């Protein structure tokens, strides 16, 4: 087994854990963290392919994409966090369950 394959397999696992977490977790914060984990899985997949395709350096395109992707994911997460905190402030709710 090559190094990259260990991580590309891990990426698949993280992606599914994250996806499950978004649907199954209750607390807002956990849902937000789950999206980050999902994203980490995606990024790991990208970078594992970068390592696979390395010549004198690892493939820079997926790395650049991942840097962009991380920043985008963080911006969304910060926004989600602001929403979650504000909802809590206004209603005292920490998850969607109370709402229905």
């Amino acid at each position, binding site marked *: 087994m090559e190094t990259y394959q260990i991580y590309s397999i891990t990426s698949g696992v993280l992606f599914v854990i994250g996806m499950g977490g978004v649907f199954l977790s209750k607390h807002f914060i956990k849902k937000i*963290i789950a999206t980050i984990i999902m994203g980490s899985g995606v990024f790991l997949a990208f970078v594992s392919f970068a390592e696979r*395709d390395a010549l004198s350096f690892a493939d820079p395109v997926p790395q650049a994409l991942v840097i962009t992707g991380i920043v985008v994911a963080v911006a969304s997460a910060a926004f989600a966090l602001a929403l979650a905190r504000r909802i809590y402030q206004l209603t005292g709710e920490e998850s969607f369950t109370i709402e229905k």
Partner: protein
Amino acid sequence: MSVLIDSLLAILIVYLALQCLLAPRLTQTVFLFFAFGLALALAWVRLGAVDVAITEAAIASGFLGVLFLDALRDFSFITSGKQESSDAANHSVSKKKPAFLSLPGVVLVLGLGLFLLITLEAVWKVPESGGLTAATEALLPESGVENPVTAVLLNFRAYDTWLEMGVILLGLLAVMAVGGIKIFPVHRKTPEDPVLQQVILFFTPILFLFGAFLLYFGKNGPGGAFQAAVLWGAIGILLHLGGRPVLTVIPRWLSQLLLIMGIGFFLMLGFLLLAGGASLFEYPPSYAGVLILIIETLAAISIAVTLVSVFVHLNQLNKEESN
């Protein structure tokens, strides 16, 4: 040997991810999230992606972790406030079946398991392609920088990066749209904490220098605007926490200028190039290196200010509540 290290690291990452979501307390979740980020950063290093590792450690784990930590004051406050009731609730819950044992829960978990198998099959069978390494290698000399990642980010795919700067700015606008705070509220004096003051005194110059270092050498080695920005942003956050709200001191137009400087300059440069008959962001080859350095510097400042503003807004959200 290396397979063993990588396998252990992979297992650790998965374990931390799972624990992070399953931990009963939010505090645990957030600290496990920090640990997850660090483990992931190690994985990036193992994969030869040092730029990604720094970004991960700085932004995803560092900055976002701090935001979560700050948020904990909100949410953990209720857990302590509703301590008894929530404890009682916990007991009653533990007597009942956990949610994932109910029928829909079982179906969901089974479905996820199946999905995992399919995912692994697909990931395992990814055909070899060679990626774009060779293409980058061939064009790297024309890019004006030596670090291939920087070349992709700021030259080959500069359009993406420019839009991404927009996303960061949007992140701030979106946080502002949530409401509940006035833009850049007047700071209330907080009691001086001598330890914090010492930390600030010590770290400010170091963070600044290290950031500048990352920025400048990002041309040739790992590092660049985003990483530098987080370090500079950290200065702002520290100063804010230490009772020195830098952003409220400077005039409003200046702080706004700082916010948009990066994306604004980038865009104006692009328009100038368009007017000159070139494509958007198509630098003249001989100036490419200089232009990229200017863009990176301005972008780093803008991103740093943006990150500080995001933090201040989220932090302030909490203070409004305590009023």
